[in-house]
C-alpha cells in the first residue's frame, strides 16, 4: 500500500520506528533530516501526490494537544484535539486537509508518549472537570492503524478506569475522555479488547450516493454501519457524526434513506452522541480546493462567506452554503435525529 517511507534521521533507529517500518513494508526507505523537507515545499501537486502518497515518520516537537475551535464539542466545556498523523488515506473531496497542506503524503509522529504526557498535563489543568480529547481531526483515527498501532497505544493509555494495566506506562487522569473519529472499518483490535466507558468511537456518515461520489476510497455506508453495530454490541460507546451535510437536489431523499438505515440498525438508546454540521471551509482552503478540482459538482453550487464579513482576517473567513439553504438542511436533519434521541445527546455544530 505504501511504497516509499521517509524517516527522520533522529528517530530512524528507535524501536517504535523500526516496528512501524517493518509493518509498512515499503520498497524504498529514505532518511531525511526533518519532515518539512518533504512535506512543506510549495511546488507540490496535492492531486497527483494523492495517487501514491508516501509515509513520513517524524518526531513532533510541541503543540501536541490544542484547543478545539469554539462550538466544537459533545457537551463538555473543555475540548482539545490532537493529531498523531497529518493527512489521511481517504480522498474525501470536501476535506479541509487538501486546502491546508501542500502535500498529500502522510506524516506520522512516532513519539506517541509525548502526546500522552501532554494529555496528562492538560487534564490536570481542569482538575476534576471532564476534558474531551478529539482524535481524527487532521487524519482518520483508525485507517492506518495496521501500520501505526497508535490507537492501540492510546487506548491502553486511556484505560485507567476500566482495566488497570501493569507496567510503568503513562495513564490518563480520571477526567480525560477520548473521541476516536473515523470512517474506517479497521475494528478488529477494538473488538479484541474490553470497551472503555471514557472512549467514544465516532463514525462520520454520509448517504451512500455521496460516499460514492465524494468520499473516495472510503468504506461504504453499509460497512460503516455494520462496524458500528459490532462495536456497539461489544459494548463500545458509539457516536454518530453527520458532518459535513452536502447540499443536493435530492437532499431529503438521500438523508432520509441514510437515517432510516442507521436508526433501524443501531440501538439508538445506547448511542453516546450525535453531531451535525453543513459543509464549510476556510476561504483560502476553498480557493485552493476549487483550483485542484474545478470539475467537482459539489464546489459548483452557490457558496458564500458565512461569517457575514466579520472575520478579522481573510484567512479566518469561512465559506459555506447560503444561510437559508444551510438552515433548511440543518432543520430537516435535526428533526429526524431528535425523533430518535433526546436533546442532551444532540450537538449541532456551529463553527
Amino acid at each position, binding site marked *: 500500500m505504501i*511504497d*516509499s517511507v*521517509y524517516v527522520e534521521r533522529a528517530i530512524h533507529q528507535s524501536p517504535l520506528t523500526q516496528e512501524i517500518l517493518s509493518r509498512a513494508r515499503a*520498497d*524504498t526507505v*529514505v532518511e*531525511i533530516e526533518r519532515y518539512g*523537507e*518533504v512535506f512543506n*515545499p510549495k*511546488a*507540490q*501537486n496535492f*492531486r*497527483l*501526490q494523492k*495517487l*501514491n502518497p*508516501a509515509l513520513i515518520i517524524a518526531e513532533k516537537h510541541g503543540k501536541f494537544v490544542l484547543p478545539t475551535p469554539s462550538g466544537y464539542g459533545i457537551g463538555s466545556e473543555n475540548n482539545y484535539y490532537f493529531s498523531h498523523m497529518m493527512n489521511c488515506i481517504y480522498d474525501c473531496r470536501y476535506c479541509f486537509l487538501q486546502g491546508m497542506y501542500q502535500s498529500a*503524503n502522510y506524516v506520522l509522529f512516532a513519539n506517541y508518549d509525548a502526546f500522552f504526557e501532554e494529555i496528562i498535563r492538560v487534564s490536570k489543568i481542569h482538575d476534576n472537570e471532564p476534558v474531551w480529547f478529539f482524535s481524527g481531526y487532521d487524519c482518520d483515527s483508525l*485507517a492506518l492503524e*495496521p501500520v501505526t498501532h497508535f490507537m492501540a497505544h492510546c487506548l491502553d493509555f486511556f484505560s485507567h478506569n476500566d482495566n488497570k494495566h501493569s507496567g510503568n506506562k503513562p495513564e490518563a487522569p480520571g477526567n480525560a475522555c477520548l473521541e476516536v473519529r473515523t470512517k*474506517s*472499518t*479497521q*475494528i*478488529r483490535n477494538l473488538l479484541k479488547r474490553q470497551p472503555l466507558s471514557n472512549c467514544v468511537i465516532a463514525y462520520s456518515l454520509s*448517504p*451512500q*450516493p*455521496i*460516499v*460514492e*461520489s465524494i*468520499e473516495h*476510497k*472510503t*468504506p*461504504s455506508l453499509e*460497512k460503516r454501519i455494520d*462496524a458500528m453495530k459490532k462495536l456497539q454490541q461489544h459494548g463500545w460507546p458509539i457516536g454518530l457524526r453527520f458532518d459535513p451535510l*452536502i*447540499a*443536493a*437536489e*435530492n*437532499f431529503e431523499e*438521500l438523508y432520509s434513506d441514510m437515517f432510516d438505515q442507521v436508526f433501524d440498525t443501531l440501538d439508538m438508546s445506547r448511542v453516546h452522541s450525535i453531531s451535525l454540521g453543513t459543509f464549510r471551509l476556510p476561504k483560502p482552503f476553498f480557493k485552493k480546493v*476549487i*483550483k*485542484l478540482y*474545478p*470539475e*467537482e*459538482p*459539489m*464546489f*459548483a*453550487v*452557490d457558496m458564500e462567506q458565512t461569517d457575514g464579513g466579520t472575520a478579522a482576517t481573510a484567512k479566518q473567513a469561512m465559506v459555506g452554503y447560503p444561510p437559508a439553504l444551510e438552515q433548511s438542511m440543518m432543520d430537516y436533519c435535526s428533526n429526524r435525529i431528535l425523533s430518535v434521541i433526546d436533546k442532551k445527546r444532540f450537538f449541532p455544530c456551529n463553527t
Partner: protein
Amino acid sequence: MDTRPNKRTIHTLFVTALQAEATPLVAHYRLKALRTRAFRFYQSANVSLVVCGIGETAAASATSFALGFLPAHCTAINIGIAGSDNPVGSLFQASTICRDNTCDEKTAHGPRPGMHRSFYPHLPFKGELPTLRVTTVVNPRIDYMSDCCFEMEAYGFCFAARQFLAAEQVHCLKVISDNPGAPLDSPPDSKLDNSEYQSNQSNQTFRFDAATISNLIHAQLGNIENFSTQLASACQKNLSTTTDDTESALAAYISQIENSNDIQMHFSESRHQQLLRLLSRYLALGKELPQNLNPGNSKDLLNLLETGIAGYLPGYTSKNATPSDTN
C-alpha cells in the same frame, strides 16, 4: 511532421548533459533538431530534449531555457550516467538529490543561498525501478558507494525544474557508467565526445567514451520509455486541463453572443476570471449555458450567467459498491 508541443497532452522534457546520452533518445523518439542560440534542442509533438553540457549550472540554465517555452502540462526527466558501486549498465531512479558538501568549497562567501536543500522526487504511481540517492558533485569522484551515485547535473536540473513544475513532475534517471571494477578514467584513449573534462581538484583529465555512453543509454531505452509514459499518463489524468478547456469554451461562447448581438464586450482581468469560474461551474454541474442572451456589456453577462445557475444543486445517485478496508 509538426513538432510544436501539443497543449492537450502531457509533454515530456528530457535533459541530458552529453550528446552521447542524447543520441539514443533522439533516435528513439524521432526528435527533430531545432535551431536555438544556446543549447542543442530536439523536439517532437510530445517530447523535447535539451543537451545541457557538463555541470549543475549548465543543467539549471538549459532546463530553465527549455521549460520557459514548453507548456506547463509537462514532465521533466534528467537522464544521464553516474558512478556508483553498482553494476555498470544498471538504471536507477533518484530517491534523493543532494549536493556534495565540497560543492561549496570554492564559494568565498559561504553556501550559495537556496542551494542546500535536498530534493526528494516521488512518483505518483508505484515505481518499478530501483532507487538510489544521487549526489551532484563539482569534480568527478571515484570513491564509489553502493547506496549513492555521483554525477554532475541532477541538482542543477532539479533546482531549475522545480521553479516551473511540481515535485511529482520532476525526476532523474541514472545509468551506472563506472564503478570500482571499471573506474571513470579508464579507458583513457577512447573516442571523445564533447566531454573531456579536467578536474579542478586533481588536475586529472577524465574522458567519456561516446559510443560506450550511447550504448549504456540505448540498452535502457525500454525502461526509460516505460517510466516516462507512466509518469505522463498519471499527469495527464490528474493535472487539471480544465482551465484550457474552459478558456476555449468561454471564447467560443462570448464570440457567439457578440456576433448575435452585434456588440463588442470588454473584459477586465478580474471579470474574465469571474466568467471563467462561472463557466466551470456550469460545466461541473452539467448545466447548459443559456442561449440567446442579450447583455449590454460584460457585467450584464456576468449577472445573467449568475442568475442562470443560482440555486442549482447536483443530484446524487448510487452507482456501484465502494471499496472497503474491512480487516
